[in-house]
């Protein structure tokens, strides 16, 4: 289905635009997917720092049963913005806009994404929306958590409307990115790069992009309705005017359940690249991993009401949602078993990227298992809205997505900057983060089982010990993250020069210089097989000139 390079040339693959020379066109309003990816990553990590400060505020507040660090009002604002930021401004942009833009066009052998200008547009919407979200603090931020259930969000402070507008804009950015990625993967793969030869990171993006495109639009509808109701009094959700609060929950979760797969499928992809590279072994069960990503993405649209078992849903509607949710455990299990089997018989190199990928396996598996628990309606009726849920989703989102992001950062940083991140600092980062993370979130499981509800700024004194334990552990985790930023700042100046392929990896992006040229490939290569077979020569032809000084050919079709 990919466009084969025409024998007489002149297609997109032979159409090399001249590199822009001004600083602004090159680094600010760039249409180069690599620069845009780096822009996403930098912006995402800036918001990550802000969200981390908010998270520490939460943990300091919960050091004591009576709270007292901030007022309950501020506390509610803090966790609402923390959740919204982490979901919409950190994890989703980093994984799709960031690593997606940076890596997958290189991996499929394209010169850029399908619509570079659209790509620039979707990036520039994102920081604006982020600033809008944080500006809601000035007018009274939303307090009802990242889910903003009406009617409480209808009577929330003025910033709640700003929140809705900001998330709507992020949604527009996501939708455009999704469209761009689908078209790029469908149409712009290098000759010979069939779907069954595509690296698994691309499969992760390919499964995610339709979710971005379809689910995010559904969220846009919900947010628009909320905004209209708050600003113009148009009744959708207010029960006193005939609306239904449960309607919001349907509309919101119809997006937000697929959104959790938006946040994890690209991380699956990252891990599927890192594990084989550092095990010096093909990924185990390539086809099943690729297929299970698609299965998860598809099934993700059919399970949203499992967030609503306590919301007064008709009983007969609950059962199918529970069973389909259980079914998702099967493809997810296949992935975890396949990754574990990939390690078997390997020659495992303990780079930091590999440590994070293995940490991902350990933590995500736990989050996945508690996810199955919560899918069982009787268990959910007990633990919905408690700290058990908080523990569960932090295990999948921090232990899963964020570990994947860190793994990807250590893995692809040389490709972005040409220099390696310090392995020594990286290992400190990993261990502090891993230990601190478990110390923070593992106790939340039994806090929830004992009866500690979510969204509280004070709690019963019997929960104080484990809360203090969690808070102190969170400082350890934060120390790890600080080391990570120190590492980046240090290595970008003084890091070891990486060369084209410091990891001995076999996917296409490692066969070209780091950082790659503006046009990515001097000649678009032809692909002959899967990239993961370490005993075979590289399955690419046409890459001979990539690492020497040959200038790129003048574009045949350039006007």
């Amino acid at each position, binding site marked *: 289905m990919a*466009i084969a390079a*025409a024998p*007489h*040339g*002149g*297609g*997109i693959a032979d*159409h090399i635009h001249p590199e822009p020379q001004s600083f602004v066109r090159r680094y600010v309003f760039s249409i180069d997917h690599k620069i845009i990816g780096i822009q996403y990553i930098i912006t995402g990590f800036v918001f990550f720092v802000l969200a981390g400060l908010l998270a520490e505020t939460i943990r300091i507040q919960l050091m004591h049963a009576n709270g007292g660090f901030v007022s309950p009002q501020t506390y509610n604002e803090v966790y609402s913005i923390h959740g919204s930021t982490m979901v919409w401004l950190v994890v989703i942009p980093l994984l799709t806009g960031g690593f997606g833009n940076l890596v997958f066009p290189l991996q499929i052998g394209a010169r850029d994404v*399908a*619509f570079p200008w*659209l790509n620039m547009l979707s990036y520039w919407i994102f920081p604006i929306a982020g600033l809008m979200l944080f500006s809601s603090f000035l007018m009274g931020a939303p307090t009802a958590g990242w889910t903003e259930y009406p009617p409480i969000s209808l009577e929330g402070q003025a910033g709640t409307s700003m929140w809705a507008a900001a998330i709507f804009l992020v949604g527009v950015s996501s*939708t455009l990115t*999704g*469209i*761009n990625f*689908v*078209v790029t993967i*469908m*149409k*712009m793969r290098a000759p010979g790069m069939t779907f069954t030869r595509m690296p698994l990171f691309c499969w992760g993006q390919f499964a995610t992009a339709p979710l971005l*495109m*379809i689910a*995010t*639009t*559904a969220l*846009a*509808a*919900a947010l628009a*309705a909320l905004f*209209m*109701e708050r600003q*113009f*009094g*148009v*009744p*959708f959700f207010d029960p006193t*005017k*005939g*609306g*239904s609060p449960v*309607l919001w929950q*349907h*509309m919101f979760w*119809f997006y937000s359940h697929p959104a959790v797969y938006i946040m994890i499928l690209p991380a699956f992809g990252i891990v599927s690249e890192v594990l084989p590279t550092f095990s010096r072994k093909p990924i185990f069960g390539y086809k099943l991993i690729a297929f299970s990503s698609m299965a998860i993405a598809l099934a993700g649209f059919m399970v949203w009401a499992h967030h609503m078992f306590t919301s007064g849903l008709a009983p007969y509607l609950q059962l199918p949602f529970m069973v389909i949710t259980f079914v998702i455990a099967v493809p997810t299990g296949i992935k975890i078993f396949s990754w574990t089997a990939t390690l078997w018989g390997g020659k495992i190199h303990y780079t930091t990227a590999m440590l994070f990928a293995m940490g991902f396996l350990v933590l995500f598996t736990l989050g996945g298992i508690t996810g199955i628990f919560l899918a069982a309606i009787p268990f959910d009726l007990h633990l919905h809205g408690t700290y058990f849920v908080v523990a569960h989703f932090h295990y999948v989102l921090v232990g899963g997505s964020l570990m994947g992001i860190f793994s990807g950062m250590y893995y692809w940083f040389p490709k972005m900057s040409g220099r390696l991140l310090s392995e020594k600092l990286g290992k400190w980062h990993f261990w502090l983060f891993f230990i601190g993370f478990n110390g923070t979130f593992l106790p939340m499981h039994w806090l929830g089982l004992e009866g500690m509800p979510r969204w509280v700024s004070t709690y019963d004194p019997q929960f104080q010990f484990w809360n203090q334990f969690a808070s102190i552990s969170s400082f350890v985790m934060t120390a790890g993250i600080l080391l990570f930023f120190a590492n980046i700042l240090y290595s970008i100046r003084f890091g070891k020069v990486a060369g084209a392929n410091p990891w001995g990896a076999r996917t296409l992006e490692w066969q070209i210089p780091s950082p790659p040229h503006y046009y990515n490939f001097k000649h678009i290569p032809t692909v002959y097989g899967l990239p993961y077979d370490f005993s075979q020569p590289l399955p690419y032809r046409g890459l001979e000139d990539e690492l020497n000084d040959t200038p790129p050919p003048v574009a045949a*079709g350039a006007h």
Partner: protein
Amino acid sequence: MAVASITQGGHDSHGEIDQLYIETRELRLQGFLLFLVSDCVLFSSFIFAYLYLRNSGQGWPPAGINRLDVAFAAVNSVVLFGSGATMHYALENWKHGNFMKFAWMLIFTIVLGVGFLCGQGYEYTNLIFHDHVSWWGSGIFGASFFTLTGMHGFHVFVGVCYLTVLLLQSAGGVYTKDKYFGLTAGTLYWHFVDVIWVVLFSIFYLL
């Protein structure tokens, strides 16, 4: 005047079609279709919201609100559907090189689209000033009806502007007999707007 230059625009267009155009067109076509898909999801979400609220056990239409006027809406729908048919023939004529006919069909389409908007404006005026139904003051009926039809009306408005731009562009010789992706996209968009109305007409007036 415009028509004359369209007729000329078609002449020197043969043999210019190249690999770059074929590939770019394929990308744009797919991107545009995916955009329509996500737009469709936007409508679907609001339609879901409408059907959900409608079936939340309060009876329909809610107390104090009359049934919508089916006969007038049927005429208005026929106007919009008719514009879909003329748009189809506009593109067909362009493909076969009948640029005059193309221009007339496109003009018909725009006129019918404006007619639909006028009809909708008339209907809104009636509802607001005669029946005293408003967007925010009439409960879930006003909310869902005005939001969905308003959103559709906005799409029609954008479509009319889009088609007008296409008319001017084709008059200015932007498209040739073989390279006319903008016209294809415009036709797709206009059909999409029509088809959404089939659904909205059915669920608001006939259900």
